[in-house]
Structure formats: structure tokens, C-alpha cells
């Protein structure tokens, strides 16, 4: 902002500057490496703790459902992976925005490392959903709006994974993948609202922000614990991969000091 134009509101201006400083401060790869190394054990062990409690409770102690019987226990994996599939893609899109607008080196690396983990979550969501569909609905797969839009999300992940690695010049790969990630964001609201906008074989969501959950509490608690465990596990995996990626950049810089910077970072 040029000096001649005074900021409209002094407080909002300083707030923006402070937020910007905050992001610049923590988005530095070296600093991120140190912080994530320090918090990694806490994230990893709490992820293991909550996942074991949640899945153990869901598998052995929660009651069978009145219509689905014991097959309802697949839900304790299906729902957390479904949420992570969408949340992971949202994170990928934020990285893409950061790559295109602010050209943050950490955002580039994060996009590269989040996508494979998110793709695995989406694959798990599709596989467990299909394994639940066969005994419940009577079919492994139908082309309804919910199932198809999640399959599209999986292909978006695969496209991102290959596009970001497809270029000799790494920066061009990051930018192309960022554009794909941002364009694919349209799929997220489609997934979320597909069961409300169109009639589908998949049932509407049981947990929403607007009304009381239509799950009995004896099933809701193990579900919440496994959602927490899986989310922490997702973070732990991304942290570990991102730390390895930061070290690998450093290794490339030491091994090939004469290379252009865009081929290293």
C-alpha cells in the first residue's frame, strides 16, 4: 500500500499485517521442521490412542443397529475416512491458493505430501462403503450422485499426484497442480449436498450442523472418537512426510549446488 493513502481502519490494517507476519513466520520450511519435530510424538501417540479406543469400542462394545445389524460397525471407518477425504482436498486447495498467490515453498511441499494421504483416505472410504453396500443395499456399486462425486474426488487426487510430478521444472508442476486443486474444489459442495439435491441410494448425512444427530449416543461416541483418532493420524502422517520432504530439499541443495533453484525446491 503506497504511503500517500492512509489505511482506512488502523486496527484492521495492523491485524492484517500481524496475520501476514504470523503466516510468514510459521510457513518458513526450516522453522516448520523444528516445530513439527517437537509436536510429532504428541500427535502420533494421541492418534494411536484415540483410534484404538474408537475402533475397539465400535467393533466390540457398541450395539448392533436395528436395521443394519453388525455391519453398522463398518461405519466407524467409513465416516472418518469420508470426512478426511473432503478435508484433505480442502487443505490441498488452500495449498494451491498459497502456491499461486503467495508462492510459499512450504505450500508446494505440503500439496505434494497431502495428496497421497488424502487419496488413500478416499480409497478407504470407497472400499469400505462398497463392502457395506453389498450386504445392506444388495450391490457393491451404483452410479448415484454421492458415490459418483466421491469417485471423481479420488480421480482428482490421482490427477494431482501425477501432475505435480510431471514437470522437469518443479515450479511449473506446483502451479499446474495448484490450478487442478482449486478447480476441483467445486466437487466438495457437490459431495456434501448430493444426498439433499438429488434422490440417491446413499442415505442423507446423520450428523449435520443444523439438526440433532440421528444416531443413538451409544454409537455416536465411538464414532466421534474414531473421527478424532483418524484426523490426528492424518496430521501425523502429513507431518512426518513433510519433514522428510524438507530434509530431501536440503539434501538436493547440498548434492547439486550448481543446479537452478527451481529444480531443487
Amino acid at each position, binding site marked *: 500500500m503506497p504511503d500517500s493513502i492512509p489505511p482506512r481502519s488502523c486496527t484492521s490494517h495492523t491485524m492484517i499485517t500481524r496475520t501476514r507476519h504470523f503466516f510468514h513466520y510459521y510457513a518458513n520450511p526450516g522453522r516448520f521442521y523444528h516445530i513439527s519435530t517437537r509436536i510429532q510424538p504428541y500427535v502420533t501417540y494421541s492418534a494411536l490412542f484415540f483410534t484404538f479406543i474408537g475402533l475397539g469400542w465400535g467393533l466390540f462394545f457398541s450395539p448392533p443397529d436395528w436395521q443394519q445389524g453388525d455391519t453398522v460397525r463398518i461405519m466407524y471407518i467409513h465416516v472418518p475416512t469420508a470426512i478426511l477425504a473432503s478435508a484433505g482436498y480442502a487443505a490441498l486447495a488452500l495449498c494451491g*491458493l498459497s502456491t499461486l*498467490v503467495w508462492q510459499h515453498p512450504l505450500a508446494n511441499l505440503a500439496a505434494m505430501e497431502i495428496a497421497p494421504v488424502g487419496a488413500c483416505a478416499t480409497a478407504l472410504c470407497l472400499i469400505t462403503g462398497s463392502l457395506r453396500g453389498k450386504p*445392506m443395499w444388495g450391490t457393491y456399486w*451404483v452410479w448415484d450422485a454421492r458415490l459418483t462425486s466421491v469417485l471423481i474426488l479420488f480421480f482428482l487426487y490421482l490427477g494431482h499426484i501425477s501432475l505435480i510430478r510431471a514437470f522437469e521444472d518443479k515450479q511449473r508442476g506446483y502451479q499446474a497442480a495448484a490450478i487442478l486443486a*482449486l478447480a476441483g474444489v467445486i466437487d466438495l459442495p457437490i459431495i456434501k449436498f448430493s444426498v439433499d*439435491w438429488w434422490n440417491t441410494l446413499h*442415505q442423507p448425512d446423520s450428523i449435520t450442523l443444523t439438526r440433532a444427530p440421528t*444416531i443413538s449416543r*451409544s*454409537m455416536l461416541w465411538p464414532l466421534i472418537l474414531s473421527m478424532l483418532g483418524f484426523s490426528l493420524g492424518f496430521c501425523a502422517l502429513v507431518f512426518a512426510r513433510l519433514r522428510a520432504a524438507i530434509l530431501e530439499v536440503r539434501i538436493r541443495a547440498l548434492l547439486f549446488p550448481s543446479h537452478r533453484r527451481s529444480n531443487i525446491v
Partner: protein
Amino acid sequence: MTRKTRRLWLVLICIACFGTAIGLILRAFSSDIVFFVTPSQIVASPPPDHRLVKLGGMVVAGSVHYSKHKETPVVTFDVTDGRTAVTVTYQGILPDLFREGQSVIVIGTVTSKHRFTASEVLAKHDETYMPKEVADALRKSGKWDPRFGPPPPDIWHSNQN
């Protein structure tokens, strides 16, 4: 406006345009994205013969009849959307969730105005999850009978456990 702010706005405008385009496409093809049609839609405008349609609705209580045709079980039942009912004939094994009051989707052809021959039956389950004992207790107390459709939404306020 700095270069970064300009880039941010450009990216956001691009996403908004792309989103609008996709939204309009989905709106235009909305009738093709629906997975099934209802009995009243089929009765109002019957699809051409031999065309495979997916019919969705609730199995009417007391309408399920089992018989046998050369070793294969044959079942007939009525599917309703609350306004009209269509009688469905199906040969084969039904999914576990099939029962009176359950939402089902049958895939097959329309044979006459209110008759349908299904080649496949899919059971839909709703978004309510509760232990069997709770469902039984609700039925005994007369608050909800699963043979007449999904549980009413207000039972979740009175019967949380």
C-alpha cells in the same frame, strides 16, 4: 493493490466463474442425475416399453406376497411414495434389509399402468442409527412402527440414550 492481492482476486474470480458454470450444468442435467423416479411420476408419464427404469419408494405394509415359480422364489409387493402405489413382481433373492416399511429401489420395466417387473431390488437404509432394543421399545410404546416408514424426527429429542 499489490501484485499479490491482484493475483488473489484473479484466482478467486476464476473459481467463482468455474463454480457458476458447473452449477448451471448440474442444474440443466438435474433430471438425469436423480437415481430413481417415484411411482406417481411413472403413473403420470409412463416410460416407453422395455426401457429400464429405477423406481424408488416404500414397501407398503401387508402387501408382500411370496410364491414359487419353478424353484425360484417370486415376490410381489406394492411400492408407494404416499400418493400412488405400483405393484412390483420380482424373481430372485431379496437383500437383507428388505421388509415392510423399508425404502427400496427396484430396477426393471413397466408392464402396465400400475404394474412393474423388477430384475433387481436394492434396499435403501435411512440415516437413523439406533440399537435394536431402542427400536423395539419405541414400537412397544406405540411411538413408531417400522412397518409404516422411517422414524419421525422428533423421537430423537424424547428418546436419546
